[in-house]
Every structure is written in C-alpha cells, then in structure tokens.
C-alpha cells in the first residue's frame, strides 16, 4: 500500500487482518446449554463474539482461540475443539 501523510491511518482498518488464522482450537457454542447471559461477549479480548437475536455467535474470522469464553461460561455451554485445517 502507498504511504500516507505522516503515516496517519484510518481507524478500523485492522479488520483487514483476519486473526482467525492464529487459532489451533476453536470455541463451539452449544445453544441448548446457552443461557444468553452475555459473559462470552464480555470477556473476549478480540470482540469475536456477537449476539444476533439472543443467539451468541463466534466470529471465526477473528477468534484467536484463547479459550476465555469457554472458561468463563457459567453454564459450560462453550466447548473448545481442535481447529481443523
């Protein structure tokens, strides 16, 4: 990419870099166990959990597989499974 004046960059451009490629394990949300408490969305350092009509969804484009969502889920509704290449 060409340079900008003073190396100033528009905000939000990190979305061009999909950190999902960092994963070696991925979270899977078992909807039957999920109570929609929102903890997973709260604790994700990468903003990779979204809620769509009270259904919690992992954004696999950016999820790094750190496991915080699974560890903090009060109903153990999230399972970390090995990432398949």
């Amino acid at each position: 990419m060409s340079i900008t004046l003073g190396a100033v960059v528009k905000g939000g451009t990190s979305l061009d870099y999909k950190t999902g490629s960092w994963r070696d394990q991925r979270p899977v949300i078992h909807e039957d166990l999920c109570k929609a408490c929102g903890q997973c969305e709260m604790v994700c350092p990468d903003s990779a959990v979204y809620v769509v009509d009270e259904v919690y969804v992992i954004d696999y484009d950016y999820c790094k597989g750190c496991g915080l969502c699974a560890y903090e889920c009060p109903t153990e509704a999230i399972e970390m499974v090995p990432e398949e290449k």
Partner: protein
Amino acid sequence: MNHIKVVEGSEAVALAVKACRPQVISAYPISPQTHIVEWLAKMIADGELETEYVRVESEFSAASVISGASATASRSYTASSSQGLLLMTEVLYASAGLRLPFVITGVNRALSAPISIQVDHQDTISLRDSGVIQFYVESSQEVYDTHIAAFKVAEDQGILLPVMVCMDGWILTHSYERVSFMEQEEVDSFLPPFQPVNFLDVNDPKTWGSYAEDDVLMEFKYAIHEAMQYAKGRIKEIFSELAMVTGRDHGGLIEAYRTEGAEVILMAMGSMVGTVKDAVDEIRSEGKKVGLVKIRCYRPFPFEDIWNAIRGAKVVGVMEANFSMGSEGAVGMDLKAKLCGRPDAPLVLDFITGLGGREVNKKTVGQIVQKAEEVLNSGLPLPESHWVDLNPAILQ
C-alpha cells in the same frame, strides 16, 4: 502601517508570537530563553493574550504538549535553548515524522559540558538531521518578522513540519533594538487560522504513530526530504509575501551581501552577521573584494541560492559557531558536500568562531580574510578547520 518601539529582543519574539494567535503555548525556563516565556506569561496575566499556557515540568514535555496540541488542530508554540533543545530532540524527530507543524524559538547557547550559558550554535546545529526547518536571524527586527513567517511555513499543507527560529542568546534576546511592529489585521490577513490536513477528530477517527516495517519506512523518511525540498521555494514565496506587507525585505533563504565580484566570500549566520557586514564594508573600502553570504534558512540547506552567490569567488570562508567532534564544522561540511565534484567550485575553508561566546569582532573577520588569502596563494592541501582565536597557551 507599522508602529515602532524599542524593545528587548525577547519581547519582540513574544509580540510576534502573540500576533500569530497561538492556541497553546508550553513554557519551561532555561537561560537565555526565559524572558520570552515570561513576556508571554505577563501578557496572559494582563488579559492581553488569550491562549492555553501550559507550565510544563521539562522541555521534553514542552515539545510534547505542543505536539499533542498541533495534532488536535491548534496552532502552538514553545521556546527553548541549549540543554533544553537537546532534551526535546526525540520529540522533534517524532513530530517531524508525524508531520505536526508548530514553531519553536531556538535561543542559541553553548552545550554542556562544561556548562556555559554563552552563545554558540552547537545546540540548534545538533538538530539539523531531525526534519525541523531552521531559520537563523541577525536582528530583533528579523526575529519578529521571521516568527510570523515561520507559522505560515510550518502550517503550509505541502510542508507540515516544525519550524525553529534560531536567535543568539543574550546578544539578541537581552539587547534592546528598535523594532517595527505589524498591525494585528495585517498579521491576521497574512496568517489565517491553522487548517490541518489531518487532526484528532472524533467524527473521523484516525490513528497516528503506527509502526512501519522495512517495506515502507524509507519512503516515509523520503517524504520528509521531499517536503523540505518543496519548502525551499515556498519559504522564499512566504518571505516575499511578508516583505510586501511590511516593506522589510530580509532576503530569501540567504542574503548575498556585496558578493558581486568578490574573490573571498565569507559565510555566516546569526547575530555575528552584523559584525561581518561591518567588516566587509571596511575591507571593501580598503579595496579588497570581499563579500558575505548570510544563511537565513539552514535546513533545508539552500545550496542552489548559495551557489549562485559564490560561483564567481575563489575562496569561501565559512565562519561557524559549532563543531562536529571528530570531523569539522557542520555548515562547512554541508557546503563542501554540495560542491564536491564541481570543477568550478571555490575553495572552502572552515573557521570555527565564537564557541562558548568567544568574541567575534571586526578584527576576527580581518584575520579570517587574511588566512583565506594565504591559503589561496599557497595552494593545496587545505588545512583542517581553523579554530579562530584559540588560546593554545592554556591547553594542557
């Protein structure tokens, strides 16, 4: 119409800065700059200047405060000297890289150690690589006019770099001269409000200060070099524009003083120029063809203009109050680098004068001209930098 007052050089600076309506001023004291920030503080305390005056805890913060202010679209200013300028060196490089414009007065003073508060140019010369534009002035009038031009230069959308106006400590800051001041309307008309290209804007959030990998860093640095090259022409235009308003023309990037037909041309900057001009007049009246190139803009280095002034001469005697330890004087090096390879280039002799406030007077100039002629007549090899008026008797 201008009005005239006898003022201390520092007050002339303060009045110039005041007229430019800075929104943020940071202040930290260091001799011999302190009077400038004190004048500004008094103006604010008396309700004559509306600005945010930040009393910082170090020069590092002084430069940092105005960097933050500039990034937030405010015109900003500070002043420093010597050790303080060195302390803010890191900030100046970074702000040049981020293309943040502001104006700093660099009051020239020798660098420790040993500690000295006398004048020389080592401090501002040490910053010559930073990307900060540097002007050097000869008189209080020039310091006033140059500060006003400096804001316009810094904020020019093709430049966007910090600008340092260098003035000799004590000699200019603490002496009293007649200065002619512009009307506020004239300044406002010459210098409209600051219009940044980028700024920290909640409605258009941008990120400043990214880190650059090896595939782009060189280009970012080159962009600063390009801006400085562009600045050469633009600075001259801005100086001319101001001269049209004030009726005072201090020259462009240089002033060529009696260089026509000169065989020996001296080169100098700062307040010593006044002395050199007097000496040139005397020597000319005795029949010798000498002249002077006064450097007004040192960075970017105005080689094209210098070349036009010196091309006919046989020898250029660079008089400079700085020394790059382990090599020679900086200005001499700049000139020689540009002349290298030109078959018609004059000889360049480097004279180290006035370090730590050692007096530079007409006699000094006479000695320098004599030395230049001696070398010219005796031919190569050229001597090393000549330390003028050095006292070898007290060396160990």
